[in-house]
């Protein structure tokens, strides 16, 4: 009882100063960023001392955000004494921001702890600079979630894009990494332009760029749809929605693993946040057609990502494609939510939106964790090609065990967290026949089927990922010297694994947190859990699920079976060689390769890929099998556009003569022309 009073008073103290406390944490990150420059070449100082402090700030952030969500405070706004004269920065802390800040803090704490043990000297950029970029990146993501006007939002958004660009290119001496970084920067800026235009449309002629003004602006259906489409393009490019996904499989593998984890786990979620903010909060979900567009794009991205992930041979590329798949699932859920909300079915809308939010949270946990695990594998073996790994469960038991939890979670298996969000999403799909649009009703079951296929394919992909890296025999002799992760890395991985398990067995916690955000956006939360053991988002009769009972029953049956077998079976355990079918010359190269494991998928979905295959001839002395798989979007969409841009650039390249006088003259003439235009109007 005392504890209860103490906890409530603590929450009260925090909640009265919630916004300033959150801003203090953001300021802490910025201070840490500057502090990194004091001794930029000292790994001990930057990594072992400052990064754990950053992780503590992350924990503080997640606790603050969780307290705000639990207490259910009304939104708090403030105007900062920063920014341009007459154009100050506005910040606002409401349930949606709090949910995403909690996500940022939870996953960020694990990643920062891992990063503290991960960074070694002599790998690309000096550690001090990395630390600076890393912490500014964290702070800018938090500011994106707090911004309450388009100006601050865009400043933070661009800071985020730039710091992450520098982090991606930290090993800039490698040409592929420079190229990946450039592609990323290009797509980030195209996206930013779209978002900027979207804000431009939404201010609706009032020239007020605060979100409050946009909330109250009345737009015609055409302009509202235009704003939505621009936002979708902009945030879709950041999130990696197909067909704006091309940068993602290039940039994520190029970055150091903690940075990949940050980008995939956290930065993609800022795009989800932005879309939710614009579609639900600023544009008030007006048309169900928006939902259908999102649904189709999301489902296609999901399927596309899963299929491509299945044929990858680089472990980080595989995870990057799996991120596309997960983003697809999140966007599917958002689309479904818009569809329901615009058809005046707020309960189902809240269900789908809760699925989207919880999946975003889950993905930030398990995907960061898997990226971090690949980082440990990379450091231990110096290999990232799946074809040169294998059997690491025997040399890296910690990483292997923790990665198994992440693998099962991302494969959407009960009782872990990935299943919870997929279950909620499928439940939302089951409610679609009550929609008032007959034609959509007929098609949506197919969407549910595509979703089920995607989820099942994800399990295939993750079995490949885990099996090829950690199980089987080592494919290279050098793998036997692989060492396990150090203790800071283990703590980081453990933190994320615990998150996966806790949300899996206590989904009502996540559902309650998400309920605040859906309550703010749709005025409706899902049905409260009937007991502390299980969730039943619509009604108890229709569907209920309990992760804790699930886990408890499985564990107790395993224990009982184990004891019973102990009593019954008296046979000894004898270690022998594996059965070799009477062919004693088997070696580790005869296991399935990553290509081999993906072969059925390649066979079934071959229209998705552009494949080049070199098959060995019977007469080859050194036979080699090589397969190169390319994304059809490259040749169908990007290369033509790039060619047109190149041609246009060539056509006007005479302007770039290198003479300063000419540049000044042309700037002056442009200015003059603009002035004339303004005066004439």
């Amino acid at each position, binding site marked *: 009882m005392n504890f209860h009073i103490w906890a409530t008073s603590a929450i009260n103290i925090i909640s009265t100063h919630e916004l300033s406390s959150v801003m203090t944490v953001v300021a802490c990150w910025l201070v840490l960023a500057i502090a990194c420059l004091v001794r930029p070449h000292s790994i001990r100082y930057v990594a072992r001392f400052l990064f754990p402090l950053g992780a503590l700030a992350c924990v503080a952030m997640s606790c603050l955000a969780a307290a705000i969500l639990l207490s259910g405070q009304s939104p708090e706004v403030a105007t900062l004494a920063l920014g341009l004269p007459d154009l100050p920065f506005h910040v606002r802390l409401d349930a949606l921001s709090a949910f995403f800040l909690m996500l940022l803090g939870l996953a960020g704490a694990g990643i920062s702890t891992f990063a503290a043990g991960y960074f070694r000297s002599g790998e690309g950029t000096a550690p001090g600079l990395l630390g600076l970029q890393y912490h500014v990146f964290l702070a800018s993501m938090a500011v994106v979630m707090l911004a309450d006007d388009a100006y601050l939002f865009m400043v933070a958004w661009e800071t985020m894009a730039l710091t992450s660009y520098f982090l991606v290119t930290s090993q800039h001496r490698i040409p592929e990494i420079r190229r990946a970084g450039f592609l990323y920067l290009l797509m980030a800026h195209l996206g930013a332009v779209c978002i900027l235009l979207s804000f431009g449309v939404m201010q609706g002629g009032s020239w007020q760029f605060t979100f409050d003004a946009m909330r109250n602006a009345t737009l015609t259906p055409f302009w509202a749809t235009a704003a939505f489409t621009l936002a979708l393009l902009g945030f879709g490019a950041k999130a990696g929605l197909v067909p704006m996904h091309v940068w993602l499989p290039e940039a994520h593998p190029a970055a150091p693993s903690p940075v990949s984890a940050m980008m995939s786990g956290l930065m993609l979620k800022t795009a989800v946040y932005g879309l939710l903010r614009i579609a639900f909060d600023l544009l008030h979900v007006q048309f169900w057609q928006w939902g259908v567009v999102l649904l189709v794009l999301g489902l296609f991205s999901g399927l596309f990502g899963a299929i491509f992930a299945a044929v990858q041979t680089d472990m980080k590329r595989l995870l990057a494609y799996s991120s596309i798949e997960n983003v697809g699932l999140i966007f599917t859920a958002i689309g479904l939510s818009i569809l329901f909300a615009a058809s005046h079915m707020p309960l189902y809308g809240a269900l789908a939106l809760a699925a989207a939010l919880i999946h975003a949270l889950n993905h930030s946990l398990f995907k960061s964790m898997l990226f971090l695990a690949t980082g440990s594998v990379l450091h231990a073996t110096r290999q990232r090609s799946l074809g040169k790994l294998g059997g690491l469960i025997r040399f890296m038991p910690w990483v292997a065990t923790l990665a198994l939890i992440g693998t099962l979670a991302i494969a959407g298996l009960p009782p872990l967290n990935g299943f919870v969000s997929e279950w909620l999403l499928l439940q939302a799909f089951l409610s679609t026949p009550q929609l008032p649009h007959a034609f959509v009703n007929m098609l949506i079951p197919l969407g549910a089927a595509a979703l089920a296929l995607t989820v099942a394919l994800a399990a295939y992909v993750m079995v490949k990922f885990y099996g090829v890296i950690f199980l089987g025999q080592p494919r290279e002799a050098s793998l036997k010297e692989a060492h396990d992760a150090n203790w800071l890395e283990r703590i980081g991985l453990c933190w994320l694994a615990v998150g996966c398990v806790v949300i899996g067995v206590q989904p009502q916690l996540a559902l309650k947190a998400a309920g605040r955000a859906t309550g703010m956006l749709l005025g409706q939360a899902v049905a409260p859990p009937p007991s502390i053991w299980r969730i039943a988002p619509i009604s108890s009769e229709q569907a209920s699920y309990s992760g804790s009972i699930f886990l408890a029953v499985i564990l107790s*049956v*395993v224990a009982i079976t184990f004891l019973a077998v102990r009593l019954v079976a008296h046979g000894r355990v004898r270690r022998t060689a594996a*059965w070799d079918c009477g062919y004693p010359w088997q070696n580790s190269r005869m296991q399935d390769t990553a290509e081999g494991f993906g072969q059925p998928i390649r066979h079934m979905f071959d229209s998705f890929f552009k494949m080049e295959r070199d098959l060995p001839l019977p007469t080859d002395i050194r036979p080699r099998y090589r397969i190169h798989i390319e994304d059809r979007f490259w040749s169908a969409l990007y290369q033509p556009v790039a060619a047109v841009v190149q041609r246009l650039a060539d056509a006007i390249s005479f302007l770039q003569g290198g003479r300063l006088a000419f540049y000044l003259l042309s700037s002056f003439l442009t200015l003059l022309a603009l002035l004339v235009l303004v005066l004439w109007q």
Partner: protein
Amino acid sequence: MRGIAFVWQFGEVVLAIALAPLFAGWIGQCRAWMQNRSSPPLTQQYRMLRKLFNKDVALADNASRLFRTAPYVLFASMVLAAAIIPSVVTDLPFARAADAIALIGLFATARVFQALAAMDIGTSFGTMGARREMMVGFLAEPALFMVFFNAFLLFGSTALTSLVDNYATHPSVIDPSVIFAGIAFVMVLLAENARIPIDNPATHLELTMIHEAMVLEYSARHLALVEWASSVKLFNYACIGIALFLPWGIAIHGANIRAVLIALAVLVVKLAFCGAGLALIESLSAKLRIFRAPEFLAMAFLIAVLGLLVHLLLGANTSA
């Protein structure tokens, strides 16, 4: 929650564990009769389990802990599945913990563990079996989901117990979509339980096997658990089919002991018929090439979707 419900719950789980090898044996016997062979006794499966439990375990040198844990997880998953499926009574306390979608997830968990364990030793058969099993799994899962979607549209619940309850309290006229769903379900059942035409449970021919390839490295008590788990899985699938398509006679909420005994007798009769039916299908069909398996499962999926569309179209007509 009444105490008696826990008794039913416990009894049903024990029943599934105990009867599952018998059911597998019954199918084997029917197959032997239909193929004009002399059949092994009905209790053959039990004898095999006893033999396996008494043997020494021959474990590969490089087997990790995952390999040794997987049979237990597999068995536990199937036991939990048996606890959720209303085979005799619907008054099951654990059924609230997981609905049909969670059941699909549970089967997926078991499948993933089995595939991972198969990859652990690193022999080419193990990985090949794992890859094929995962392929069959990811195609069968959407089809199964569509079947449950169909049932949901008819009876408004994804919890199997509520489905049966709702069916008993509102016995509607037979909807044509049920027939489609039923066909799709049987096809999924055949694929998921390694039966002909996808896999042959009796084969040890390397190039055709899926399930047997995965368990090649298991021996003694581990193999016994894996085999037992797969017979419980088959039993579970049969019971899901009965609950969805032939739910007459299952003791619904608040039933007394007499009703439960009748339900038990009815279940045994239904299982005997289902087993004979499965044996008939298996005797009549030939094993497909592995590359044809996707077509088979895509067909199951399309049939289920067709059922769904039929239901929606008819529903639209009646309401209009």
